[in-house]
């Protein structure tokens, strides 16, 4: 494997995982290669997406938000209406089917906000597979409702206490579990990260978001939108939203990453702004790290963006400038969270609130009679307690 070979996006991507996982990664790659072309697999995936997840998700015109912001027309791609409340289920169902085809009886996952853990626990229950979810101990607290749901669905949560006890450590721990149980277990990676072929599989499974959005918009408006926006943690909802539009050169694409509390190392998760090329969790990508190559802990108000790395395809899209990645602070995200909730009657996930903030600026710049689609990656039910806590702190 080298440059320009499968699994690389420019110089980024590849497979930098412990040798013990190579066999499993090769098996996954070849299985997926076959399944991608298999009518049976496609049909089964489509069946679950429409009959279980609730696809296609609507493309909603946000009339009040459009007026309120006073710029471009705002459209929302409603991944929040998926079963379990976020885009994560698109990927979890697809990978669970792949696992089934490979004859694996056990699935594991890492989770930050708990949405991917919830999606995995859900498909684990539906397909009757033993499910284990690794979650940072801090996130088990921050996202307690999701943690409780995961357990109720019959999955086991293993809280990870190492390091910062968030998504990065949960990911490392899931990789270790996989190394130990590689013959019986499939690791459902939850974002467009990890060693090849994960970034490609996750992107393909999430690409349904952008494909639907593009054709829905075209059908209703007989043209393409001027801009699209999505939030970027590992980057799965964003790459899913962007993919169908990458070749539409006149469609401007924006990614929103977590600027956290500020620019100091340790205070943000703004990988595409402050990251440097490196190797983490099996992939070559942009990573927040110090001069010596030690990974710096990430921070974000939203557990789902709190990751010091990013999917390699985003690193590439940022390098080639096809996508404009911008930072949004915790406070700006929180403001948008409340604004969207009150104006539009939709409680977005804190992750998505980052995308809304970028969208607000872009909408103003674009001006009236232009169109902008936001990927509403998930709903904010999981964040209500945390938001109330933060508001309480603010008013003190």
């Amino acid at each position: 494997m080298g440059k320009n070979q499968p699994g690389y996006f420019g110089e980024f991507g590849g497979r930098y995982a412990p040798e013990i996982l190579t066999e499993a990664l090769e098996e996954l790659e070849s299985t997926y290669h076959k399944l991608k072309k298999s009518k049976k697999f496609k049909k089964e995936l489509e069946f679950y997406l429409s009959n279980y997840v609730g696809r296609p998700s609507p493309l909603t015109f946000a009339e009040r938000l459009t007026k309120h912001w006073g710029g471009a027309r705002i459209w929302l791609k409603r991944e929040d209406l998926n079963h379990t409340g976020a885009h994560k289920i698109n990927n979890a169902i697809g990978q669970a089917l792949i696992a089934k085809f490979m004859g694996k009886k056990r699935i594991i996952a890492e989770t930050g906000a708990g949405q991917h853990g919830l999606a995995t626990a859900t498909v684990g229950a539906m397909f009757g597979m033993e499910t284990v979810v690794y979650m940072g101990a801090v996130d088990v607290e921050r996202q307690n409702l999701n943690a409780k749901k995961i357990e109720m669905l019959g999955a086991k949560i293993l809280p990870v206490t190492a390091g910062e006890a968030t998504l990065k450590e949960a990911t490392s721990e899931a990789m270790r579990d996989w190394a130990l149980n590689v013959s019986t277990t499939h690791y459902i990676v939850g974002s467009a990260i990890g060693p090849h072929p994960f970034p490609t599989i996750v992107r393909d499974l999430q690409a349904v978001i952008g494909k639907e959005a593009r054709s829905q918009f075209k059908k209703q408006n007989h043209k393409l939108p001027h801009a699209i926006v999505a939030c970027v943690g590992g980057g799965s909802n964003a790459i899913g939203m962007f993919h169908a539009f990458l070749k539409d050169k006149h469609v401007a694409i924006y990614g929103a990453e977590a600027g956290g509390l500020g620019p100091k190392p340790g205070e943000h998760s703004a990988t595409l702004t402050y990251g440097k090329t490196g190797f983490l969790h099996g992939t070559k990508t942009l990573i927040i790290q110090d001069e010596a190559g030690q990974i710096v802990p990430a921070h974000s108000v939203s557990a789902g963006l709190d990751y010091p790395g990013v999917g390699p395809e985003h690193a590439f899209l940022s390098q080639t400038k096809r996508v404009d990645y911008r930072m949004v602070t915790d406070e700006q995200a929180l403001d948008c969270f409340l604004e969207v909730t009150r104006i539009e009657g939709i409680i977005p996930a804190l992750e998505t609130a980052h995308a809304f903030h970028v969208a607000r600026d872009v909408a103003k710049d674009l001006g009236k009679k232009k169109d902008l689609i936001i990927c509403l990656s998930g709903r904010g039910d999981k964040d209500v307690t945390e938001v109330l806590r933060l508001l309480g702190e603010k008013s003190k």
Partner: protein
Amino acid sequence: MSKIKDLFESGKIKSAFIPYFTLGDPNYNDSIEFGKTILDNGADILELGIPFSDPVADGPVIQRAVARSLKNKFSFSEIFRVTKEIHLHKKDVPLVYLTYFNPIFHCGIEDFLNQAKDSGVVGLVIPDLPFDTKESEVLFQELRKRDMDLIHLVTPASTKKRIEALKKTSTGFIYYVTSFGVTGERREFSVDLKERIRFLKETIQLPICAGFGISTPDQAGQISGYADGIIIGSAIQRIIEENGHEFPKAKQALAEYIAKIRVAIP
């Protein structure tokens, strides 16, 4: 010829004892003393861990060691300083670094290798850099230029095809991972360990050293009967963990443990 090749071809040892510990745990100066103690009590090759914040191939014991080490300010100049001190204590024992690729990449491959070599290091083990990457090829070329070795890991899951393929860029010895999963002490090993090692020896014309999970003198004695070397990490790291706050006690416990393993290996 590389130092490691020299050692195995000298006929002086039947099976090598290769202890591992993480530099900087609990601090860099104690590391020097631990290194000397291990050397005094018998190591044929010494493996030094350069801590990395996200050691995905390591179990809890080494993860905790790395975390303790990183509480000290990490710098390559500290790493090289400590390494050199250990090297000067017993210059004929080859030193090998075990680390993840990101820190090396950041230091810059050439810069890193020059300084590592200056400090007495003759080989590298990098658990997250598979041999079939562009970076591994570059690293291999640079190591060759310096008579240093790239020690590859082979696991129970490695296919014949991969084993054949890694021959080309493999020198020093093969680090055979005795069990699935990550580093850590274990009671049992896979049943076909002996056969796998024999097969590897025939396929790759290099010494095969076994590691991951070995901790007792019994295990060391048995496995060294058919492997060209045994690597012990977690058990040593546990001794440092349990006694590291009391330096003389830690040193004493380390010395005793190393000596016990030493006599168990023929």
